């Protein structure tokens, strides 16, 4: 089974719930190396998204993701607003008019999602950002698609690669964002943005467990 519009709405609703539960954890990560607002910002942004979900029923997947993007841009005051906002807007353009997403569509969605964050943040991997979770996740998804694995497996592998990427951020020196002001003191802390990116993909994989194939 592909990812349907209903699955997309379930994913976003569940992610809002996960962010609410993990709000203090994300904020704690951000207080070590940033401005201690990531958990709060993500929770607020996706709370606004979840309030719009009922109105999104009947939309195609592209329109849903574009609505998520504009909602995040207008409600989140931290860097995560423009970054996730741009990523979701581009994902919405890439999936415009679609009612279902298959493996190739998911790889395409992740590709534009990553490109959006790179372009908006002028960032690359290795700088202790969300890209350190998302780029390995994209690579894993591409590899899974090339091997013709089913969609649930693809998402599971992609999420696992993101989780590994999150761990890799711990010894990194931050050179982008607020954490870069800390210089060497940013080393030894897990990046909050990479963590919220992993949770996004983990939630999608969990949503599809036993459903997508």
């Amino acid at each position: 089974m592909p990812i349907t519009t209903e699955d997309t709405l379930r994913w976003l609703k569940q992610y809002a719930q996960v962010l609410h539960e993990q709000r203090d954890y994300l904020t704690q990560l951000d207080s070590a190396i940033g401005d201690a607002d990531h958990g709060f910002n993500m929770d607020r942004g996706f709370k606004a998204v979840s309030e719009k979900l009922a109105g999104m029923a009947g939309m195609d997947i592209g329109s849903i993701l574009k609505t998520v993007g504009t909602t995040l841009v207008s409600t989140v005051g931290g860097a995560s607003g423009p970054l996730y906002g741009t990523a979701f807007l581009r994902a919405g353009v890439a999936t415009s008019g679609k009612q279902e997403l298959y493996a190739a569509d998911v790889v395409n969605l992740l590709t534009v999602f990553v490109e959006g964050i790179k372009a908006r943040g002028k960032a690359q991997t290795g700088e202790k950002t969300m890209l350190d979770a998302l780029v390995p996740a994209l690579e894993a998804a591409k590899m899974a698609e090339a091997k013709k694995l089913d969609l649930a497996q693809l998402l599971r592998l992609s999420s696992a690669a993101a989780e590994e990427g999150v761990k890799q951020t711990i010894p990194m020196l931050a050179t982008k964002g607020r954490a870069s002001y800390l210089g060497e003191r940013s080393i030894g802390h897990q990046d909050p943005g990479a963590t919220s990116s992993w949770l996004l993909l983990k939630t999608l994989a969990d949503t599809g467990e036993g459903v997508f194939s």
Partner: protein
Amino acid sequence: MTVGLVIVSHSARLAEGVAELAGQMAQGLVSIASAGGAPDGSLGTSFEKVLAALRQVTGPDGALILLDLGSAVMATEMAVEAFAADHDYPVVISAAPLVEGAVLAAVEASVGSSLQEVAEAAEHGSELPKLHKEDS
């Protein structure tokens, strides 16, 4: 019409204060708008506030945007892109230090200089001496 100025800060009070200070130098001849704080007024930046400020001060001569910290750049760039979608007026984001840049830009804009001249004036903000070194 002169070049307009937009002051973007993570803090609403900081943005308003810088706009006030620059406005004093411009003697009412320059449109200056502040866009400070997150959408709910807490510390952060707001795409919509920056876009509203741009719409308020930007005419055919364009506008210069000054920022407090690098993390304000992304929301500002999104606002500039949205503004460009329905206006042809030129907009430049300045890398100048906020306070010095805003004051220099206000003075330059008040004499009717072009956007490029105003932007260059602001850039000199990083060279303004605050302490005069004693002659040795």
